[in-house]
């Protein structure tokens, strides 16, 4: 299938990278030649130099009835017009349109019926992800699978947790009604697959999968019920920082640091309770005068990885309880183990949501869990049937999986099923597979292919 990506910025680039790896014919359009050549060197894609909303460029990118157009330039209007052109002139199969401005997002159908098939808003996704982490203190990572039905959560076991020092199976005694599956535990940085007799120890990093409603109570099993955060400091008043502050300011005490004075003025007008501070987040004096040691959660959300890493190091050193950053370049993480509690790779979220929307794909989601260790979780959709695949008519326990991989949950017709030996595969099942090592990804992906 052909995919035309309009805009070779951060979002477009990471989409191109991911999609070109999975058997799509990807072409990418941008006005900036240097961006295109950088992508072309590394990826097996076609590049077209031209304006994203010009019929000519879309034509040269090869749009036809079998094409999916993904308009992800940083300009909403360009994206909208590009989708209109693609649909009306080239009759493309599907359009995905990126919106920065939520006021368009709310009314995207006015641009024409069937013009924009899937609206996406990367900033919104990042914001809601951050918000979820802040609203669930204790969780270091929360990933959604199968359209929010199932969540994979990582939590660090603490001394006072009810389950610490006990066997894993006793979780059933505490919460008989809750179904949770624990595919992996990291102990001292090394993963292993636990069974019912595994005894949870302090500082274990536990990954569990459960339906969305239960995650709060499961987190409480592993650590003393943590007080909700109350003081949040946000660095960076961009779109993400602003909307996070706006969403949080009613329930939390929010301070926001932004270095651009005009942006500060805008923020102070738009935000009601948030205290907007003008200055650099790496300014020790500023952090000190704003009582950094009382901050429960320090969120560094600028566009600049270095600022995010450095400011959160400084904040942590000066007493901030937890730090959370957005990071485009994961290689920084390994440099400063322990200083950054939570990180988010912002455009990965967009990529995975686009992948989710391209339902034809066998692998709907591919989520990195521990960047430095290379653990991944994959959501795969079973498109094969008993005639095309040899996996059928077998209990899922007998499915040959590579080492370190296990099926963590099955979502069938919207219901979560915990994997047990009695379950057999079915068409359109979503399998959530946990991989301790991402090298096994391609082997696992093969399982979903119908050949």
């Amino acid at each position, binding site marked *: 299938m052909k995919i035309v990506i309009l805009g070779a910025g951060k979002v477009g680039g990471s989409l191109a990278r991911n999609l070109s790896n999975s058997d799509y014919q990807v072409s990418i359009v941008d006005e900036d030649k240097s961006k295109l050549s950088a992508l072309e060197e590394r990826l097996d894609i076609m590049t077209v130099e031209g304006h994203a909303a010009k019929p000519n460029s879309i034509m040269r990118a090869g749009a036809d009835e079998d094409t999916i157009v993904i308009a992800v330039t940083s300009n909403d209007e360009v994206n909208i017009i590009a989708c209109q052109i693609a649909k009306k002139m080239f009759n493309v199969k599907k359009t995905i349109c990126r919106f920065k401005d939520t006021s368009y997002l709310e009314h995207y159908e006015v641009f024409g019926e069937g013009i924009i098939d899937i609206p996406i808003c990367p900033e919104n996704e990042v914001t809601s992800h951050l918000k979820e982490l802040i609203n669930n203190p204790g969780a270091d990572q929360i990933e959604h699978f199968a359209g929010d039905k199932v969540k994979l959560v990582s939590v660090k076991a603490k001394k006072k947790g009810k389950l610490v020092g006990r066997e894993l199976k006793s979780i059933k005694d505490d919460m008989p009604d809750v179904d949770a599956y624990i595919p992996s535990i990291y102990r001292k940085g090394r993963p292993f697959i636990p069974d019912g007799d595994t005894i949870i120890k302090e500082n274990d990093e536990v990954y569990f999968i459960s339906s969305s409603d239960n995650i709060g109570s499961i987190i409480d099993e592993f650590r003393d019920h943590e007080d909700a955060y109350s003081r949040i400091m946000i660095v960076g008043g961009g779109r993400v920082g602003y909307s996070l502050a706006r969403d949080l300011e009613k329930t939390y005490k929010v301070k926001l640091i932004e270095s651009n*004075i005009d942006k*500060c*003025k805008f*923020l*102070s*007008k738009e935000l*009601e309770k948030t*205290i*907007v*501070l*003008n*200055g650099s987040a790496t300014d020790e004096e*500023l952090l000190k*005068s*704003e009582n950094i040691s009382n901050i429960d959660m320090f969120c560094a959300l600028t566009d600049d990885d270095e600022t995010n890493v450095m400011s959160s190091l400084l904040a942590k050193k000066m007493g901030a309880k937890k730090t959370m950053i957005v990071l485009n370049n994961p290689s920084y993480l390994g440099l400063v183990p322990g200083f950054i509690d939570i990180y988010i790779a912002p455009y990965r979220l967009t990529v995975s949501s686009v992948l989710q929307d391209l339902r034809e794909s066998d692998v709907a989601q591919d989520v990195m869990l521990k960047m430095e260790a290379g653990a991944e979780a994959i959501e795969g959709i079973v498109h094969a049937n008993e005639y095309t695949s040899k996996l059928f008519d077998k209990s899922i326990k007998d499915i040959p999986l590579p080492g370190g991989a296990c099926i963590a949950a099955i979502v069938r017709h919207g219901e979560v099923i915990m994997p047990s030996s009695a379950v057999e595969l079915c068409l359109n099942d979503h399998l959530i597979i946990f991989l301790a090592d991402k090298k096994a990804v391609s082997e696992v992906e093969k399982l979903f292919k119908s050949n």
Partner: protein
Amino acid sequence: MNLKAIINLFSILVMFFSASFALPIAVSIIFKDSALMIFIITFCIVFGLGFFGWLASKGKNDELGKKDGFIIVTFFWLILAVAGSIPFALSGMSFVDAFFESMSGITTTGATVISGLDDLPQSLLFYRQLLQWMGGMGLIVLAIAVMPLLGIGGGQLYKAEIPGAMNDQKLTPRMKETAQALWAIYFGLTVLCALLYYIGGMSGFDAISHSLSTVSIGGFSTHDQSIGYFNSGFIETVCILFMVLSALSFALHYFAIYMRKPLKYFADPELRFFISILIIIFLVSLIINLFSKSSDISIRELLFHSVSIVTTTGFSISNSADWPISIGFLFLLGAFIGACSGSVGGGIKSWRVLIMINYAYINLMKLVHPNGVFSLKIGSKTVEEGVASSVWGFFSIYVISFVILLLALLVTGLDFESAFSAIGACLNNLGPGLGDVSQTYGTVTPFGKSILAFAMILGRLEIFTLLVLFTPIFWDK
């Protein structure tokens, strides 16, 4: 300057004004009182002057400019006050007394030099009430509809200061429609108020007379005892209700009635501030009353007087001269805050006070967070800092004017308490003061009365519009 056009405009205005004498003439005929000739003579003088001026200035006129607007607005009150003083002068009052009374009426202040109201001819009493009502209407039409159009004075201040209420967004696209709508609201409130007074037991004459001065936040009464004459809880309740309604922004009434958005009342930060100030002042007066041993003021009296004075109306239901000075002073402070902007009430206006308080709060926050960037917000709307500093500028001119006028009044020999409250009451278009002036201003010297009349027009024109006429640069060609 466009003298001919201005004279033309005022001539027409004065002719219209002369038509209003038809009402007191009618009252005089109905009650067969002694003042019939007074009003007929006045009508002839005023109409004659207007007609003569109109003849003289007839013809092609240039358009009016911004500077003309200031002159028109100021002289609107001045000329009407002079024309309005003729009946009082003809009835035997001195010129200063007549001018004071007329100015007090037309600026909806409600301070009076007359004692023995009950013995006056009905037509003259009715005429006083009518003056206030017309003054209120003039303010509504001028300040709310005309002044923003000319981009001057109080209107300009309104325009910059009240986002969302009416001023960054005109009520209707055409000024004429806006003026009509506001006039209809004003008239409707008056009729409703008169009806309720009548139901409450007033005579038809009293009901109409009092509704005219209630809705205009004036405070003139046809009896020396004011509302207290009727001694009726119902009438007092109606009075309180209509004083509060008239002290609210007429733009809110407009939205509630014409746009069917009554919820705007509850969302308006100025209204909420105004009501809280009312409640706080009432509660504090209750507490003061509780702790002062000698006084025996009833809750009913405190409630009525606090509303009457904070809305800058000036009705009373009992003699407050012997109340603790602290309560009188507290109420006077409330009158300084005054009614809502866009109403007919006086004072600094709740909106400005709200801006000043918020601005002060922001400055406090800046001390705590040196790097903080704060925006001045009223409710959820942002107010530019320039507006805040112009409001502070307004406030300082207000205070300076107050102090200078107070000094001038002290020179006339009035004691401090009376002088302080007299200037406060006139500058805020309130009416009765404390001490010697708690009932009438009859004891003040003629010079003192002139100062007070000046204070009234200064307060009514929100100071800047009038003061700008005193700057040399205004008259520069």
